[in-house]
Every structure is written in structure tokens, then in C-alpha cells.
């Protein structure tokens, strides 16, 4: 089991000018896994990535890469000896080298001759672009070159810093799935940093949420979304409705009635419900009034107000929706996540 771990951080801390950027972060990335490091900007996720790569030394804690301690008390292995591949936010392609030379940069001469370059270029769908210079490539192509360059020396782990932030929204979704496919077919272990929850959930096998320098939860995407550890995480990884209530025997009684909640304790609690678990029916006698609607095509968000002033959101399919001012009744599908108050 432990031999399977490619990256391990134990209690890693780092501060800048007296403020702690990373506080005792601990993480594990298993072989072949893609870990998404998700957090709001300034939460220390990029610093964490740079510490793994060896560009910043941690103040305390240890970092292991490929089963070897690379940073820790009395140890600081130079970046070039860590077997870590890095894909930078702005790609950092060498502007004076062609695509082929960029990809070959990290390889010893004999490996270059043995066809590793062609292999990686093919893997990243770059065949035919070998002689182009970086500035002659589109944003998506540049990104694939950066990935191919990082993968070529077969590193223990590939680190990606905000890999999609330089692409426009229309390209992003497609490049994301391409990237996922390339990482999978290379069998690479990867850690990528993002502030975009959708990106983290769709690309990662495992997501680590980082808030104010601490890793607050590590879980597969589904679990993170449906079973967040704190209200803060719930809010950060998607749209969330919060309702106050009282838990008794696995049920919380709240504004929406008795809602099942799987928790072993009883008492005052806060229930979190994702918008898609609120079902609406047109009902002239209904308590809630529709006060707004955002239509996205594939789905829509309907904003409701209850007489008590509470506002909730419901996500419905893209079909005909409700009009503003219409009365509706609300039903809960599934169960609520509850947090003690």
C-alpha cells in the first residue's frame, strides 16, 4: 500500500512575510491517480505545488516523491533531481526551441534517439507539429506541448498549475477531456491546482480542498459534492441551500418538513440541500413564490422565497420552467447533509 504512494506531504508549512501560506498540509497521491487541489485564490495551493516541485522549501514537515524524502529536516533535493514534471500556468515553453526540442529537453540524448519524443508527441496528438515554434501554436496546442514535455522523462508525478486558466471558456471543456485522456493513457500520476470546482470535480479521481492554507477534506468528487465535511466546503464545491432544523432519529424537521438525514446523533442542526434535490410543482396553494430564474440551456436555476423570508434555489431541467410570481410547492428528493449547530 505504502509503496503505491507517489507523493506524500506530512505536516508541511510555509509562510511569507510572517503570514502562513500553508499550514500543516498533509496529502497522499497514489500511483496513477489524478488529484485535484481545489481552493479559492490565495489559499496556498500553488505554494504547495511549488514546494513539491522544489522551487520553495517548506519550513516544517516532510515531502516524499516516489518513495523518497525530497524535502524535510536537513533535506532539500534540487528540483532537477526530484523526478517531478511541471506544467506551468503560462506553459513556460522555451521560445527559442521547436516543439520537438521542447519535448526532448528533459531527455538524455540516447533516449531521444530511441523514439521517446515521437511516442510522447503521438500521445499528446502533436504529430506533425514537431517543427513549429511555440508562438506558432494555439493555446490548446501549447498546453499539450507543455504536458508532453513534462511527461517525456517519465516523472514520478506531473504537477499542473491552473492548467486551464489561460484558455477561453469555449475551449476549456474540450481541452479538459483531452488532458484527462492523455494523462490516463500515459498512466501518469498527477496533481493539478485549480480554483474552479467544476474543473476539479470533472477531472480528478480525488479532490483535496484547501482553505486558508489547510487541507480540509480529501475525497472522491461524488463524495465531496454529496457529503461535504463542513458548510464551508459545501458552499465552495457547488450551489448549496441551508436550512435550520432539529434532528431526531435520522430525520431533520425543517421548513420543508421531515427530510431524511443519515446521522447518528440528535439535536439542533443545519441541513444542506443541493438545488437539484428540490422538486417543484405548480400549486396555487403552495407556500413558496418564484422570485427569479436563470436559464442555462441544459438546466435552470429557480429562486424561491418562503413567507418566513428564507430564499432557496432549485435546479430543474432545461424544459419550460416557472414564471416569476408563480406559487409552487416544494418536495425533497434524497437526503439532507446535516451539520451540528
Amino acid at each position, binding site marked *: 500500500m505504502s509503496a503505491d504512494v507517489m507523493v506524500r506531504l506530512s505536516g508541511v508549512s510555509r509562510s511569507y512575510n510572517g503570514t502562513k501560506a500553508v499550514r500543516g498540509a498533509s496529502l497522499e497521491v497514489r500511483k496513477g491517480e489524478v488529484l485535484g487541489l481545489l481552493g479559492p485564490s490565495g489559499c496556498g495551493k500553488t505554494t504547495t505545488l511549488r514546494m513539491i*516541485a*522544489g*522551487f520553495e522549501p517548506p519550513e516544517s514537515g516532510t515531502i516524499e516523491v516516489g518513495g523518497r524524502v525530497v524535502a524535510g529536516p536537513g533535506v532539500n533535493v*534540487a*528540483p*532537477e*533531481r*526530484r523526478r*517531478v*514534471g*511541471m506544467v*506551468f*500556468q*503560462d506553459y*513556460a515553453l*522555451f*521560445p*527559442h526551441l521547436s516543439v520537438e526540442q521542447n519535448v526532448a*529537453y*528533459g531527455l538524455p540524448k540516447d533516449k531521444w534517439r530511441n523514439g521517446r519524443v515521437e511516442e510522447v508527441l503521438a500521445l499528446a*496528438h502533436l504529430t506533425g507539429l514537431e517543427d513549429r*515554434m*511555440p*508562438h506558432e501554436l*494555439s493555446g*490548446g*496546442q501549447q498546453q499539450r506541448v507543455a504536458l508532453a*514535455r*513534462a511527461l517525456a*522523462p517519465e516523472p514520478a508525478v506531473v504537477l499542473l498549475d491552473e492548467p486551464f486558466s489561460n484558455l*477561453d471558456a*469555449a*475551449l476549456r471543456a474540450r481541452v479538459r477531456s483531452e488532458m484527462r485522456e492523455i494523462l490516463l493513457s500515459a498512466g501518469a500520476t498527477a496533481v493539478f491546482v485549480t480554483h474552479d470546482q467544476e474543473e476539479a470535480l470533472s477531472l480528478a479521481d480525488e479532490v483535496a480542498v484547501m482553505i486558508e492554507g489547510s487541507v480540509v477534506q480529501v475525497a472522491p468528487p461524488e463524495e465531496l459534492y454529496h457529503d461535504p465535511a463542513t458548510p464551508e466546503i459545501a458552499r465552495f464545491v457547488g450551489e448549496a441551500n441551508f436550512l435550520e432544523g432539529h434532528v431526531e432519529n435520522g430525520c431533520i424537521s425543517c421548513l420543508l418538513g421531515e427530510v431524511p438525514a443519515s446521522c447518528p446523533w440528535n439535536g439542533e442542526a443545519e441541513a444542506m440541500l443541493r438545488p437539484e434535490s428540490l422538486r417543484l410543482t405548480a400549486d396555487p396553494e403552495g407556500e413558496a413564490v418564484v422570485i427569479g430564474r436563470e436559464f442555462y440551456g441544459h438546466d435552470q436555476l429557480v429562486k424561491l422565497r418562503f413567507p418566513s423570508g428564507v430564499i432557496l434555489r432549485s435546479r430543474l431541467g432545461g424544459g419550460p420552467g416557472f414564471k416569476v410570481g408563480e406559487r409552487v410547492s416544494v418536495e425533497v428528493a434524497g437526503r439532507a447533509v446535516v451539520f451540528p449547530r
Partner: protein
Amino acid sequence: MTGPPAALTETLRGGKAPRKRPPVLLTLPAALVVAALMLPIAYLVVRSFESGWETVAEVLLDGETLAVLGRSALLAATVTGASVVLAVPLAWLTTRTDLPARRTWAVLAALPLVIPSYVGGFVLVSALGPRGMLQGVLEPLGVQRLPEIYGFPGATLALTIFSYPYVFLTVRAALRGTDPALEEASRSLGSGAWATFFRVTLPQMRPAIVAGGLLVALYTLSDFGAVSLLQYDSFAREIYLQYRSAFDRTPAAILALMLVLLTATILLVEGRTRGRAGYYGRAREARPVVLGRWRWPALLLCGGVVAVSLAAPVGVLLFWLLRGLLAGEPLRTLWHAAASSLYASGLAAVFAALAALPIAVLAVRFPGKLSGLAERATYLGYALPGIVLALSLVFFGANYAPWAYQTLGLLVFAYVVHFLPQAVGATRSALLQVRPSVEEAARGLGRGPASVLATVTAPLASSGILAGAALVFLTTMKELPATLLLSPTGFETLATRVWSATSEAFYARAAAPALLLILLSAVPMYLLVIRERTG
């Protein structure tokens, strides 16, 4: 294959606006300026070929001409090479390492740029030459002669220590503009610190090294002051000697034309290297390289260069100033020369700013083949070394415009032709800051083109126009060869005063104007550094 659709790239690039015709009010003055710019070079060609092809061939194939060419090329190559060797480590140390007080070192290392080459020549001659400081110290000890500083070694030393900052500044700018992630990427791909320097950092610096090196070569080839005072027979000095002594001045014209061809070639090459795309990055502050014990040799290098190129010259000047004052050297004539300098430079600045305006407006607002050509014509001033420009105007004035010959008007005309590129460059970038939509908004509010120019464009661009004028003013102050050849009789400026006093070995008399010139030249340098710091 994965590029955005063609329609999208078209909108991203900004669709081509329909070509507007520039008003005659603009094209006519621009055409006049261009015609004036062409005059010196055109006349030089005419004058060279006046006495027929045989004479040209005779001069070209003369052994002495080839020797001059060889000496000039040798000097330019040596000075350029030495400058690169000196400047690259200094630039790297002051941008990428934890060198103590590296900002101060950066300013000090750039400062020798403000020392005009003839002042450098004066410093060298007056310190190490016959009747100089060293000789004065050693004479009581029975030393009668010092090793010769005239010729190649002196000229190389003077030009290197006062022109290496061109390479220093361009390389520094390149290093600051390079994305530090490139070096990090190289490190994580398995290259160590040294390998990264040679495989990534150095190639990033290469265009800057070439551009800076070409500037040094250009400066060396066009230099008149240092080579003349140090008596190295390169083109500039040979042209001057031919002009002064020979009965037939045709050889001087032909030599001048050869020099123009040489500098024009260098300018073309320089333009090529500048045009390469893809060499830009984001300015994220790089983590400085920790020097450790290497700190001491690094400090020694910086200190040594600054001592030789800045502290020593200023010290020598102060020595002669003090000695002159103690010997009762009158300062009154200095104010006279200073007033002449200010007057001529002020006129040049005003006329250069006025002449630059139509050219810059055309280039920015009506981009096209013709306006581009007009803009490029202004750069002829750069290709014409001062001595060549002056010579051509002397010929022209003597033959066709005796009423203008040896007047202040012709001198100012020479200054404007010579330094117009500076004014055009500054005005052009100021105009580029004014978005056309702002002007269009004024048009939409009912103002005519002239009114828009007066109420919107000019106020917004005024600081740039002023900066251009100031630059012309200060470079004119330092100009020597044209001033020397074209000044009205009895018109003495600070520059010619340094020249004549040095030529006649009145070192104490040259010190005060030389120091004043350095102080004045330090102003734009200071502004440049401030801009670098805030920008």
C-alpha cells in the same frame, strides 16, 4: 487542427479598418521634412560621383582606404566583444542574484553612458598621456616617457568603458522580461543551475546581446571624439583629416559614403534581430540566485568596472577642475559657452519636436506604405554619423547656399536631421497611448479635426512630445563633430570647448565644461532609471 475557427481569429486580430486618406495639411509638412532629411545623404552621393567613376574607384582601391576600413572594423569588433564580455555578467548579477545593493550597482553600471566619448578621450589623454597626471607624478622620479596610450589600445579602452552600458541595459531588460517559469521548467526537467543558464537563460538573452552589441558597434563606428583625441585613424578621424588638410575634398566625401554604407548595414541587421517574435514574457519577480561565497568576486567585478568607467573619469575631471581653479583659470568664458550650448540646443529641440509631429501623426493614425516610409526616413539620421552629416552640409552650403553657410540656421538644421528619430520615437509612443476612440468621441460631439487635435490629442500626447524635445535638447548639448564643422565663426559651445582645450593640452580648461556636460546628460539617464523602477 485545434485552432479557434477562422472567423474568431479574425475578430481577435481586429478586422482591418477601411483606409482613411490623410489630410493635405498633414502630408505636405511631412513631405517637406522627409525632403529635408534626404538632402544630406543625397548630396553626399552627388558630391562623391561628381569627379567621375575613376576617382571613386581610385579612392576605394587605395591601400590607405582599405587600411582605414580594416582599422574601423577591428575597433568596432574589439569594442563590441569587450562590451559583451563586461556587460552580460554585470546584467545577470544585478537582476538575478542576491548581490548586496544590486539596485545601486545597476544604476552605477549604467551611468558611464552619460560620459560623451570625447570627454572620455580627454580623461584618458589628460591622465595617462604626455603632460598628463601620471607623467606629472612620475617626473620627479626621473621618468621621462610613458608607454603610448594613443592609438588602438586607448581608443578601445575609452569606447568600451563608455559604451558597454548599451549591452548592459538591453540584456537587463531582457532578463527582467523573461518568465522565471522557463528556468524553473528547465530545472524540473532535470537540468542543473549551470546547464539551465546555458540552455535556457543565455538563449533568452541572445537577441538582447545582439541588439546591444550592434548599438555598440554603431556607436564605435560613428564616434568622432574619442578616436580623434586618441589619434586612432578610423573612418571618422580620417574623414576629418582629409577634410581639413587636403586640397581635393572628394576623397573625404567618398570615405563618408563608405561609412554610411557600413552603419546602414548594421542598422538593417539590428532591425532584423529586433523583429523576431515570441521573445516576451510576464514580469514575475524571479527568486534570486543565492551567491554565497561567490558574492565577493561578484562585488569585486562590479566595483572594478564602476571604478574604471565612472569613479576614475569623474575623479580626473575634478582634479583638473581644482587645479585650474587654483591656478586662476577664469570661469567667465565657461558661462558664455554654456549659453551658446543652451541656445543652439533649445532651437534644435523646438524644431525637432515640430518636425516630428506630422511624421508621427501620419505613422500612428494613417498607417500605410507611404507613412511607414516617411517614418523610416527619419531613421536616416541614425545611419549618418555626425561627421558625415556635417561634411555633407559643409559641401552643400559652400556650393549652393553660401548665405546659409556658417550660420546658426544650418547648424540647427544639422541637429534636427541628426536627432529627429528621438523626437519621432517619443511622439509616436505618446500618440499610441491616445486611443482613437477618444478622438472619435470628440468628433461625435461636434468638433472638427483641427479642434480635436488641439483639445484632445495634443494635451494627451503633450508629455511625450515634451520628453522627445528634452531628449533632443540633451543629446544636442553633447554633439561634437557637426558643431565643430558647422558653427558660425567664434561660436563656442561646451562641447567644442572641451575639444579645443584638449587638443591643445589645456587640460584644466576642459574640465569645467566636461563636468557640466556630464551633469546635464545625467538627467535623462536618471529619468530612465526612475521609469524602470516604477514601470
